[in-house]
């Protein structure tokens, strides 16, 4: 008999929040019309969209007209980077970013450099924390149009010094873009940014909804062909029922965030301590203190990451990995690389509102044996 499945990959996609399901089903009936048209069905759709925007803006502490919904978190990140650079192209061609940004940000940076722009990566330390002195120097150089910093690492959980980075940006007169995908709905995001993005399926909303916030006074220019929807920031019709569900679930997640963080952070502490103590030759990575409450990453020496994921899956555990053998490009995670930590045998665990203490205990009870079996099979015991 196989044990019940334990889903531990909320940082990729959290299970749909019950509030999201309820709102989605209701909005499928009421929110199918184009909110831009002039008839009753459209007015109903417009009301739903306006309410979703107002609720989400209130949760984020921004003005409703600063917030646009997008078709995904990735699209929002692309728009944040390319739009922020386009809006300040007269200032210069340089994008400053941390070396541990999400690939969506780095792929937008690649597009920028392919078009003749410059992207400058700022290093992190062994714990995955931004080198603030290097950041300060980088943003003060002439020709910097935009600086991008992830609020907290999606791969290792280390919370970034956003406030310090924002102070440096303000002193240099450079707008700061913060990718808050792992923070929104879980932990507060420090002030001082000009552009912010998030992704609904990270907090229990449906996939296919992103948030793009551009503060008043920020010079941002849409990188897409002209379209009047979403203040000209998102071309194409929105998936309105999904937007409504995203907004409802964000409000619910934000209301529970402090309590959830207080419940999950000790479980992450337990995983960090027990994995380090009970699995030989393991490197638990990321900052032990300044970190997200729900995410933990470790690497097992001499173990093939893909084999480890499959072995865990056979026991019912769904986890993620930054090891090269688990990526389509066969490259190790750029985040682990920037930190200089072991990249093979890597596992990322991310908890969510349905994760129980019993789930974590079962994982901790089974992991040492699974790793030991893989090492025995590979003939690497005692190396």
């Amino acid at each position: 008999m196989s044990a019940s499945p334990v889903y531990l990959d909320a940082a990729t996609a959290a299970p749909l929040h019950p509030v999201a399901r309820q709102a989605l089903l209701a909005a499928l009936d009421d929110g199918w019309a184009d909110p831009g048209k002039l008839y009753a069905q459209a007015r109903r759709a417009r009301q739903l969209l306006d309410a979703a925007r107002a609720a989400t803006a209130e949760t984020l502490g921004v003005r409703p007209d600063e917030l646009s919904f997008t078709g995904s978190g990735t699209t929002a990140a692309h728009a944040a980077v390319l739009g922020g650079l386009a809006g300040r192209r007269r200032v210069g061609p340089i994008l400053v970013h941390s070396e541990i940004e999400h690939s969506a940000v780095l792929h937008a940076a690649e597009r920028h450099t392919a078009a003749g722009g410059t992207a400058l990566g700022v290093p992190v330390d062994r714990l995955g924390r931004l080198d603030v002195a290097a950041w300060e120097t980088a943003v003060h150089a002439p020709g910097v149009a935009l600086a991008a910093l992830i609020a907290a690492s999606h791969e290792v959980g280390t919370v970034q010094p956003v406030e310090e980075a924002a102070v440096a940006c303000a002193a240099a007169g450079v707008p700061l873009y913060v990718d808050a995908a792992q923070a929104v709905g879980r932990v507060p995001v420090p002030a001082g940014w000009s552009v912010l993005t998030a992704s609904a399926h990270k907090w229990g909303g449906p996939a296919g909804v992103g948030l793009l916030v551009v503060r008043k006074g920020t010079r941002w220019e849409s990188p897409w062909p002209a379209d009047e929807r979403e203040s000209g920031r998102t071309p194409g019709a929105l998936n309105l029922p999904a937007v409504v569900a995203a907004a409802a679930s964000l409000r619910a997640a934000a209301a529970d965030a402090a309590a959830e963080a207080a419940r999950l952070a000790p479980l992450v502490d337990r995983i960090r301590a027990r994995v380090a103590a009970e699995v030989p030759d393991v490197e638990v990575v990321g900052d032990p203190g300044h970190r997200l409450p729900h995410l933990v990453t470790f690497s097992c020496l001499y173990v093939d990451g893909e084999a480890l994921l499959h072995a865990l899956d056979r026991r019912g555990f769904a986890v993620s990995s930054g090891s090269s053998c688990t990526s389509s490009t066969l490259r190790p995670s750029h985040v682990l690389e920037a930190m200089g930590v072991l990249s093979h045998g890597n596992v990322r665990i991310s908890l969510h509102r349905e994760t129980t203490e019993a789930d974590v205990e079962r994982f901790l009870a089974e992991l040492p044996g699974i790793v030991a079996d893989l090492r025995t099979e590979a003939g690497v015991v005692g190396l």
Partner: protein
Amino acid sequence: MTAPREVLDCRGQRCPLPVIAVARRLPELPVGTVVRVLADDPAAAVDIPAWCRMRGQEFLGKVTGEDGPAYDVRRQH
């Protein structure tokens, strides 16, 4: 830099195999010996220095020659 005494050809091998190769071979050689690991898997660039740090061995650096990327490791203990 000290010339390597031995070359481990791990080209075509995916991580963790190059790391396992150096972990097997290094303890068989005298302390102070330098081994060069030829490895074209990009993960080796991260994992060989990380292994040296975890095992207290010395990572001397990456060399890129005709045979592709290589990593020099010195046995410390």
